């Protein structure tokens, strides 16, 4: 983010005219209608919008869980259109860590093995997996919960396990979908603290999707999505944004119309 314009590093995400439509019972629904977006490594971004705004769709596209109907999406400089399903799976595995609203932990599996799961698909051996998972759990303050199952932990602890799982593969980006949505305010705060700390200490880009204003305010940049388009892209001015773009002046913000 401190690099000058002419030698900007490869961004974590770069979207040009990103659109996604669904067919629901024969009717075409445009969930995302031409989004231009650039998120650099190390950023802390909140995607905020009311339900049905298309923010979840955007999140799924950024997470390579879904493919755009049209437009270009580059993740770490790789155009996702050039990847087959296997390539997308490997990209998810290598580059992205997910944190979900409902935690999505395997119920009958210990915290340690839950955290180690992404490494299974990377072909990492069992002992190394467990060692790395243990370190990831220690990093979120759960060194004492290694062998606990999700049902034996509080919601906050479960979400911290999920964060450890997102971190274990050393991803470039953590995508968090309403990470505090199922938590009380104290646990929610704890999870946000961890994400903030993660971003600051490790330089991992954090992109979180939320509809809560106070959660979004913890991010240094807030992308407001409405009706499938970026309505507003605002950054905290304090030495953060490159070339000091104001929200209204950002060329990516809400300029492009849907197809």
């Amino acid at each position, binding site marked *: 983010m401190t690099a000058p314009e002419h030698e900007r590093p490869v961004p974590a995400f770069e979207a040009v005219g990103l659109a996604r439509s669904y067919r629901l019972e024969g009717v075409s629904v445009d969930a995302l209608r031409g989004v231009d977006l650039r998120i650099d490594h190390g950023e802390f971004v909140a995607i905020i919008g009311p339900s049905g705004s298309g923010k979840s769709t955007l999140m*799924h596209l950024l*997470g390579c*869980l*879904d493919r755009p109907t049209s437009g270009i999406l580059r993740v770490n400089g790789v155009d996702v259109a050039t990847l087959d*399903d*296997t390539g997308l*799976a*490997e990209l*998810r*595995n*290598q580059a992205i860590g*997910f944190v*979900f609203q409902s935690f*999505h932990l*395997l119920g*009958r*599996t210990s915290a340690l093995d839950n955290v180690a*799961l*992404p490494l*299974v*698909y*990377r*072909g990492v051996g*069992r002992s190394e997996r467990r060692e790395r998972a243990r370190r990831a759990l220690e990093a979120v303050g759960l060194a004492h919960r290694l062998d606990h199952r999700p049902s034996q932990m509080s919601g906050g602890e479960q979400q911290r396990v999920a964060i450890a*799982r997102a971190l274990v*593969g050393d991803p470039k980006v953590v995508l968090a979908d309403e990470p505090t949505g199922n938590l009380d305010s104290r646990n929610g705060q704890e999870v946000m603290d961890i994400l903030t700390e993660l971003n600051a200490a490790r330089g991992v880009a954090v992109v979180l999707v939320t509809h809560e204003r106070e959660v979004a305010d913890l991010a240094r940049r807030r992308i407001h999505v409405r009706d499938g388009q970026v309505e507003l892209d605002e950054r905290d001015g304090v030495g953060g944004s490159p070339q000091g773009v104001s929200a209204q002046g950002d060329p990516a913000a809400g300029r492009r119309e849907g197809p």
Partner: protein
Amino acid sequence: MRTAEALRMALEALRTNRLRSALTMFGVVIGVSAVVVLVAIGTGAKEAIEGEIAGLGSNIILVVPGQVGLGAAPTQSRLDLADVAYVRRVVGDPGKVTVAVNSGEPVRVGRTEVFATVTGTDENMPHIFERPLRRGRYLGETDVDTRRRVAVLGSEVADKLFGDVDPIGRQVTVSGVRFRVVGLYAPVGATFGVARDQEVHIPVTTAQRLIGLPRINGIAVGASGPDEIEPLRQRVLQGLAARYPGERFSAVTQTQLLGTIGSVLGMLTGVLAAIAGISLLVGGVGVSNIMLVSVRERTREIGLRKALGARQRDVLGQFLIEAVLLTTIGGVLGILLGVGGSLLIQALSPVPAAITWWSVALAFGVSAGVGVFFGVAPARRAARLDPVIALRAE
């Protein structure tokens, strides 16, 4: 993903749903054990019958009028003792040819009466058919020539009629005619359900008079070795064809009998195995069904795994291995149960059972194959799930 990891995952999943896994496996267990047991019984029956045929005496050619085979109508015999003499000339060695006239007749001593197979034959019979003597003597040439009323008793007949008393020299009444017992055969057991120890042998000439017909039922020719059987058979058939142009005679060898009966029993075993195979198929459908339910239940898990980087082949492999594990564990249990069941049947009932390695190998192979075949559809469904939709599933 490593294979060991996939295997561990699958075992974990099966352990998670213990009861369901056990019940699903049960179908395969029943199918596999049915295959093993039924094939064992079929094979056992075949071996037992072949053993009995072999016990008939080696290298014997049975010459009968008409055609012998499945579905052939029995033919009225037209052969008589002149034909026997003719066959003797054809064969060249009179000692290798014997004759049989069979009739079921009551045999009585005092007030004790048994029903026995009375066979009119000659002095060559016990040598060709290997019937060892326990006491007394065999029928002799003079007995046949002079139509003597003498008899050699099978061991069971002698036991019933005389008990512990030595029958040699005593009288028996066959169909109202008195015979003197001159010999007693050693027990030889049953062949083909024919209780040979319940036979009474008398001279063939005497038997023809007793029955009132000058016919004989068949001629038996003993070859001196396996290599001689076929040429001898041809010679006898050609000789009879020359003597009775246009008529059919059959010369059945032990090998032919073995072949015919073997193929019938092989077919029977095949049918049994097929029936058992159907139950294995039903077990496979059960596996498929449960795997589909499992995929549906674990949609969220599949979505999560995909989000974390599981490729289609990882998910496919996971569910396929689960299905194959279900059926192969079921297969191994089924084999154990089938082998145990066969041994139990063998021990507790007269039904013979022979466990064959090929039926065990086949049952195992088929159960693994059933797992792959019936696991593919659910596993593909899992592998192709859209991660976004799968993650949102209830």
